[in-house]
């Protein structure tokens, strides 16, 4: 346990000894701050003339402003998480300090969880700006506490999932730049696929003229593909939660993604025991 905390402390401190922590926290505060102001201005324009925006009456603040804003802050994390996680294991390998790390009396779980917790800590520091924004909203408008709590939880769980994927990528790369590039690429593809998913109609795209067997096959694969595109992207499961609607499958999704990639990281670190070249 003490080993895990020692690794975590060193890792967390190193973000703020170097400029990296300030850059990431600063960028996140700036972007989410701009997003917060922009979505508020947008909402105030809606309240002045709802009809112009095709709303019959003044719409719900939580649904129209708060929830999209929270999902947005989670998506910003998607762009910044690779900058947090790229150092975690790739930099140890790059500098050769992996040799120290693996010869100190530490278990794999001390190393992996210690580093993961440090990256979560940085994400929490970043999210403090979102908490301030939510505090401002709660002060001026009657908002359900559940929306605030589960909204923050949704952003946190999204970040946790991003960070676990980033940690996994960092575990098999030697240079932080390639770690960041790979995880950013992966996040971006999932994000683009996710926004594509909204345009995929239900039903079977195969023409009626096709033979029955082919139509069935195409229909089956299309359904699987559409479901994957709708369910797999990390931000897809945050929307409901950001409105205070908590579904077990959304929470389960984040826990599973995080757990799965942490598990893969354990396997990668363990691979040094059987790989010929390390």
């Amino acid at each position, binding site marked *: 346990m*003490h*080993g895990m*905390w*020692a*690794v975590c*402390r*060193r890792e967390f*401190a*190193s973000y703020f*000894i*170097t400029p990296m922590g300030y850059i990431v926290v600063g960028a996140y505060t700036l972007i989410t701050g701009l997003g917060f102001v922009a979505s508020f201005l947008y909402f105030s324009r809606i309240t002045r003339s709802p009809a112009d925006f095709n709303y019959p009456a003044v719409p719900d603040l939580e649904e129209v402003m708060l929830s999209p804003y929270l999902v947005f802050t989670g998506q910003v994390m998607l762009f910044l998480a690779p900058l947090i996680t790229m150092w975690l294991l790739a930099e140890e390998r790059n*500098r*050769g*300090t*992996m*040799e*120290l790390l*693996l*010869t*100190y*009396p*530490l*278990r794999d779980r001390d190393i992996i969880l210690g580093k993961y917790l440090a990256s979560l800590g940085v994400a929490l520091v970043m999210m403090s700006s979102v908490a301030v924004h939510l505090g401002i909203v709660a002060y001026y408008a009657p908002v359900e506490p559940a929306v605030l709590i589960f909204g923050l939880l949704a952003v946190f769980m999204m970040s946790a999932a991003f960070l676990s994927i980033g940690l996994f990528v960092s575990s098999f790369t030697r240079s932080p730049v390639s770690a960041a590039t790979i995880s950013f690429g992966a996040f971006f593809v999932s994000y683009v696929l996710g926004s594509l998913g909204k345009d995929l109609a239900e039903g079977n795209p195969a023409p009626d003229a096709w033979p029955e067997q082919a139509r069935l096959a195409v229909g089956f694969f299309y359904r699987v593909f559409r479901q994957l595109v709708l369910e797999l992207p990390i931000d897809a499961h945050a929307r409901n939660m950001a409105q205070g609607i908590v579904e077990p499958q959304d929470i389960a999704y984040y826990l599973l993604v995080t757990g799965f990639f942490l598990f893969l990281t354990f396997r990668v670190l363990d691979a*040094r*025991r*059987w790989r*010929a*070249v*390390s």
Partner: protein
Amino acid sequence: MIEVQNLTKSYGPIAAVQDVSFHVAQGEIVGFLGPNAAGKSTTMRVLAGYMPATSGTARIAGFDVATDPLEVKRRVGYLPENVPLYPEMTVRGFLRYAASVKAVARDRIGAEIDRVLEHCGLADMGRRTIRNLSKGYRQRVGLAQALVNSPPVLILDEPTVGLDPRQIIEIRNMIVSLAAQHTILLSSHILPEVAMVCGRVLIIHQGRLVAEESMASLAGAGAGMIIEIEATGDEAAILEALRAIAGVEDAKREGADRYVVHAKPGADPRVPIGRALVSGGIGLRSLTTRQRTLEDVFVESITKEPRPAGASDAERESA
């Protein structure tokens, strides 16, 4: 303290270390010698628990490196080659990290850091950022992190490489001063250094242990006298004259007008050599003896063919 049995480590098809066995007793300083890429670092990395052996066993303080890695790592201070450090940390910050990772009790951490800083001559360097330290000081920081929590075994991979002569002397003295409390295995390819520091040397070449010799036996009898001769004249005639003498095992040219004679064990052919050369009309300029140095053993060991596995086992058992 360190027991290595038939250790083999392969990287894919390349065997970096083959069937190496040795023991290091408690309190010994043992030097691990070999040309570059001989397998020194690989063996040390296996001992330190950085990577597993392909076959064979290594035990430290009775714990198997493969099955009890945590117990082994608690008892080993390891200085990797090239001294990897965290450049952005301060010396003190880094040592505090090392101390907490090595489970030094929280209230003892400060005192422990002071102790290793003092020991490694870093007392004034605690607040410095590692990035700004010179190579010599980085080496000391590397040594300091290995010393944290006084592990009974120290494994130091080329602790003096890249240092200037004055720094080498300092680090060497530091290592000698550690011998009282630690069992030390250190690697080097600088022979005089090992000769000065170590009680025993292991010579490894192309992944195999080719020689194992204590410094005492190196200096003492057993091996023949070595005679250096400076003489002018026909090279072939000189060598012929030298080889004809009864007590001479071998003679060879070592440079312009310089020859080296290995005498047979117990023989002292100096007088016959002088007589033979002078009477042969050869200009003898000087004739001196020298002790068999580590360099001789080293060159002998790595130039001769690797011993067959069976023979080396037999020798080990008789030793």
